[in-house]
């Protein structure tokens, strides 16, 4: 037990929480913006996966890491555009469409990878670039704190910056206000003469762009390659994190960090011969508890 505590209170462990939380944080913010417009974006998982491949492909073919990130963002937007087209224009069910697009993404990424490299599993044949890590001046010199907060990927800092940006966006801008209004009472927005679908489309496209960043982080920062189905459920965990954070950017960030911590803990407890079945359960058990709390809260709200 003492040994476990020793591990938990090291800078390495806290550093790894931030790294593990980053993809979940991106996905959570992507879930948040669409949820606030009244659309549950189930397709985040597939969007991230598609973007993570396109990031690798883009950076390999242009030789520039930032063009690769741009490529990931654009493909994230395109993928979300597809979801919007089906849901908003053709009025398909968002959950079914999202699931279908997730499945398509899984196959399509392998297909594209196969065309480009002849491989169906990994992209190691493509010389893709990695997003650099940066040390923050001043902060990196603070004893323990420096080694925890400094030296992360540029995208990690961008993720945390995005939380603040989204909070301001939703509160202070016109589009942000429309998005919140559509999510809370779409009928009244319609009577005010604003197109609900247009607002939702914009929210979904922003959601896609953020998912794209999350995908870029997976394949260009977390690890430096694309592998089949590499997002591995992080897009779904984000839906729970968003729900647990009640759609508030700050709270949602905390719940994303909470899931990151559960992950880091499960990774480290295994080293001490804790049964892996038990430790691997932790993030998902947290998800179920979180969703349960959320559902109970909703029920109480609807009764009131």
């Amino acid at each position, binding site marked *: 037990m003492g040994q476990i505590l020793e*591990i938990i209170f090291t800078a390495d462990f806290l550093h790894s929480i931030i790294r593990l939380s980053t993809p979940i944080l991106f996905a959570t913010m992507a879930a948040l913006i669409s949820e606030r417009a009244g659309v549950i974006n189930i397709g985040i998982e597939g969007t991230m996966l598609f973007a993570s491949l396109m990031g690798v492909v883009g950076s390999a073919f242009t030789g520039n890491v930032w063009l690769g990130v741009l490529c990931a963002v654009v493909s994230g937007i395109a993928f979300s555009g597809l979801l919007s087209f089906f849901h908003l224009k053709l009025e398909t069910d968002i959950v079914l469409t999202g699931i279908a697009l997730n499945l398509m993404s899984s196959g399509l990424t392998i297909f594209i990878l196969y065309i480009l490299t002849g*491989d169906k599993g990994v992209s190691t044949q493509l010389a893709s670039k990695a997003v650099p890590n940066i040390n923050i001046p001043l902060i990196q010199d603070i004893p323990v704190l420096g080694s925890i907060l400094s030296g992360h990927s540029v995208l990690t800092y961008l993720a945390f910056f995005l939380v603040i940006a989204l909070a301001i966006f939703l509160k202070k801008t016109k589009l942000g206000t429309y998005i919140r209004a559509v999510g809370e009472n779409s009928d009244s927005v319609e009577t005010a003469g604003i197109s609900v679908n247009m607002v939702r489309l914009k929210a979904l496209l922003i959601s896609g762009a953020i998912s794209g960043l999350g995908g870029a982080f997976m394949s260009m920062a*977390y690890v430096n390659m694309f592998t089949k189905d590499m997002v591995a459920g992080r897009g779904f965990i984000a839906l729970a994190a968003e729900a647990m954070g009640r759609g508030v950017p700050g709270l949602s960030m905390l719940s994303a960090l909470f899931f990151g911590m559960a992950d880091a803990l499960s990774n480290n407890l295994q080293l001490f*011969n804790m049964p892996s079945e038990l430790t691997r359960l932790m993030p998902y058990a947290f998800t179920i508890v979180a969703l349960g709390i959320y559902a109970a809260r909703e029920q109480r709200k609807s009764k009131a």
Partner: protein
Amino acid sequence: MFLAVIMICGMLAGCQSKSEPAPQETNGAAADDTKKEDAGEAAKPEESKAPEEGKDLPKIACLLNGNLGDKSFFDSANAGMKLIKDELGCETNVIEMGFDNTVWETTLYEVSDQDYDIIIVGTYQMQEVLEKVALEYPDKKYIIFDSAVSYDKEDYSNVYSISFKQNEASYLAGALAAMIAADDSLPLSNGEKMISVVAAMDIPVLNDFIVGYIQGAEDTVPGTKVAVSYIGDFNDTAKAKDLAKAQFNLGSSVAFNVAAQAGLGMIEAAAQNERYAIGVDADQAMALKETQPDQSKVIVTSVLKNIDQVLLLSVKRHIEGTLPYGKEEALGMEENAVGLAVNEVYDGIATADMKSKVEELQGKIQAGEIKVPSAFEMSEDEISQMKSSVAP
């Protein structure tokens, strides 16, 4: 318009596995050409091939329950089928069934209905499916590799099972890892006598690697600590990387990849944290040499599973009529079915003492002087006891 594009994309993605036989055949044609050239030197190209066909060569299908491109397991089976085609001249067909396990059974039925003489499948995931189908087609011959059907339950006289003694090669890997971890004169070792494993899942065939690895480490450098982590699937590369980073932070000097493709994340972690890695199934140092040289140079060795050689040998024995259908055979170092990869990276890292020790142990295993424990013969309790006895 948009919809049409998407549908086409979807269809193409769906056809992926079915379109595979076509490239296979072009490979075959190319192989035939080279064969003719070779035979040309031997004077009579056409006639040299004729007697082979007269012998009535078997027509072989190989069903893979996954996709090619994993740089290890399935690719090795595919290479084996190419060898069979090139060296024996059999008609072969490789069918990728993908990871959707609902189509495996129907595909096996379909292929069994066709005119193949031998049908090859692999992995424990196909075992149950094969147990059902093989009974209904007693005239067909089946070969299953890396698993075995339950011969004590039913009459499987038409099935030949090949299991690999991965524990033997892992024993050598464990011995090598323990020697490296105890020697702080090596640049990337801390001398703390701690090694580790990142495995995909807690299943017998992977535990067989781990059991051998632990035993090899303990026999060679007693008191070595072995940290064992499981990813939970074969996909999550990022998680594999984090598990390995946690192990390295704890003090492990060498990590062993028992997770095929997801394990590439572990190798990346080793390169970043400046520690050593051991690859699996294929020679991963050589596979990554061109594109990821910084990762390639920390992969001391790889535990090889020579599926290609084993399949070639099996079909040869089938043609000779000596393949023991209705039986399981466990193939190890003696048959060249498993082994350690010896390459320039290995030569550069391992000291002369280490190399001679590994060779000595290899000789003892082959001579039967060392009996390496196997996870298939141990209960779950015994395995977890073994793991906890060496846990850090």
